[in-house]
């Protein structure tokens, strides 16, 4: 078992934050991807939620999600800057080092790459003093940017060390982006990897992609793209990515199951990826003992 590099996403589980965190911990996970709703929806307020996360001992993989930030002008831009600042402050309070921002779906957003890059650079600057990196993700139904290579292109254009991309297997498979395209991305600028699969071979329209993404994703190993998913994870590993892998699984069925049942499915997915795909394993106690015995004495 070596699932330290994998984590669950709170959006997969139903129930209050404390129950979600407990289910993840008890399933053997050591990290959690949080959403702003986990904090502001807490009955005792967002600061109580932050305290709960910190007390759980789970490391925060990242914080989501800032939407529709880039490409706006005038008062819309100013409004989004305020939203971004509030998200950054919550992420910082959690000790999260990553803020997820996804490509705009707004019809008011410009498609000018220079404008988009300028806005993303500003977002990165806002996050920078807080020690937060911005992971920019191409939503497969994004208005102007909907594939990973496009996201990488604007990130490269924006050129800020704390701005990178999020690789989300769902969107990569939904748009049929060739995995080879990933090799063009500087692995040091991948700040987050989100993994999930789905049960259809194809999702052709943006509407289909959005509906499937929001209601019927499944864990790695449970969908019809397992071979592709294994290739994606292996490719990332070869590029030097060691984690974090976060399971971002929106699924209406999982929302009506006990948390531990869903967490057990997540654990099964993590074990499949860690042991069968990546062949990562924890040193056995006997091996550790042998290493200690073999170490030269001081």
């Amino acid at each position: 078992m070596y699932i330290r590099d994998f984590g669950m996403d709170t959006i997969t589980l139903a129930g209050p934050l404390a129950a979600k965190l407990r289910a993840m911990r008890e399933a053997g996970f050591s990290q959690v991807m949080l959403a702003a709703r986990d904090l502001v929806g807490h009955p005792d307020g967002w600061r109580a939620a932050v305290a709960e996360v910190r007390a759980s001992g789970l490391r925060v993989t990242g914080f989501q999600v800032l939407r529709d930030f880039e490409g706006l002008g005038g008062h819309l831009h100013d409004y989004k800057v305020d939203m971004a600042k509030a998200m950054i402050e919550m992420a910082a309070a959690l000790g999260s080092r990553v803020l997820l921002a996804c490509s705009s779906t707004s019809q008011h957003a410009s498609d000018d790459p220079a404008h988009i890059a300028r806005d993303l650079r500003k977002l990165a600057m806002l996050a920078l003093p807080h020690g937060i990196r911005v992971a920019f993700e191409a939503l497969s139904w994004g208005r102007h940017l909907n594939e990973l290579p496009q996201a990488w292109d604007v990130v490269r254009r924006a050129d800020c060390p704390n701005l990178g991309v999020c690789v989300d297997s769902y969107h990569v498979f939904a748009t049929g982006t060739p995995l080879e395209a990933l090799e063009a991305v500087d692995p040091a600028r991948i700040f987050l990897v989100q993994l999930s699969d789905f049960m259809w071979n194809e999702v052709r329209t943006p509407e289909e992609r959005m509906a499937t993404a929001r209601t019927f994703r499944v864990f790695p190993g449970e969908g019809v793209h397992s071979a592709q998913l294994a290739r994606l994870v292996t490719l990332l590993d070869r590029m030097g990515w060691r984690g974090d892998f976060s399971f971002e699984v929106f699924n209406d069925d999982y929302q009506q199951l006990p948390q531990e049942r869903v967490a057990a499915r997540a654990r099964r997915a993590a074990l499949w990826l860690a042991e069968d795909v990546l062949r990562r394993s924890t040193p056995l106690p006997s091996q550790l003992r042998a290493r200690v015995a073999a170490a030269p004495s001081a």
Partner: protein
Amino acid sequence: MPRAWTRTCVACWAHRARESTAVNHPLAREIEADAANRLGLEGIEYIEYRSARPQALGHVLELMGFRPVARHRSREVLLYRQGTMNAIVNAHGATDGEPPALAAIALRVRDAAAAHRRVLELGGWDVPVQVAPMELHIPAIHGVGASRLYFVDRWREFSIYDVDFVPIPGTDPRPPALAGLHWFGLVQRVGAGRSADWVAFYGELLGFGVMGEDREAGVLPQGIVLRSPDGGLHLQLVEPDTPHGLAGAGADGDHEHFERVALGAPDVPAAAAALRARGVRFVETGHLAVQPRGALTQSWLDGVMFELIHHEPPA
């Protein structure tokens, strides 16, 4: 974050900074200089300490050659001065038990309101205004940790201290500098793997560039040194000695802050001798011992120290 990447990235930013000055034509150089100094930076107006023990900190400043010259009209704030240097000790809002902190740098700029607008447009965080009636509103953005960066444009025709401060009777309002001491810069502690981020921050918002190997190094030459486009402020970024890996900056592992002030001295051994005569002790061991290129003072009040660096005062 892989450290190898950070190094590559910092080197890359340094390379770009050097490239940006590689222009031959004099007019092109001038245009380039203006473009690099979009805010019209012209040195440091003041450096501000926050301390719940203002008298103890004031005593340290006096040992270093500063003299108290004025008091704030409405708050427990004192202005110290020597030569071209203004240092402010602010006890307002300081927390008991906390060591003194370097709370702010006030930068002289061509137009404070325009400079403030520009850095906000680029992604700086505004500091809300909190002034009493008839006091100056000095625009600011948040800097590293809890610090602030102020923008001041009134230092030629009249001084900001004429408005907010009352002179201390019987004191010389312009005490001379000891041994030519002047502001050189500050040392900023940054989290593991965070140097490239801060290089980008100061480069983007204020036009700072990375200095090459020919930089003034002092006795603690580690890290990266940034210089303001006018040459009036140096920032030395220093990562932890032991990398904290992923638990770097922003997480609990690292506390990012301004650690100490560096004072320029045209003759470091002479300045050290003058300060010793006033009761200042210097680190005297190994490579940190007083030498022509630099020196490091003792530490007071849980961490207040000063570095001397061989540097001629600006013309």
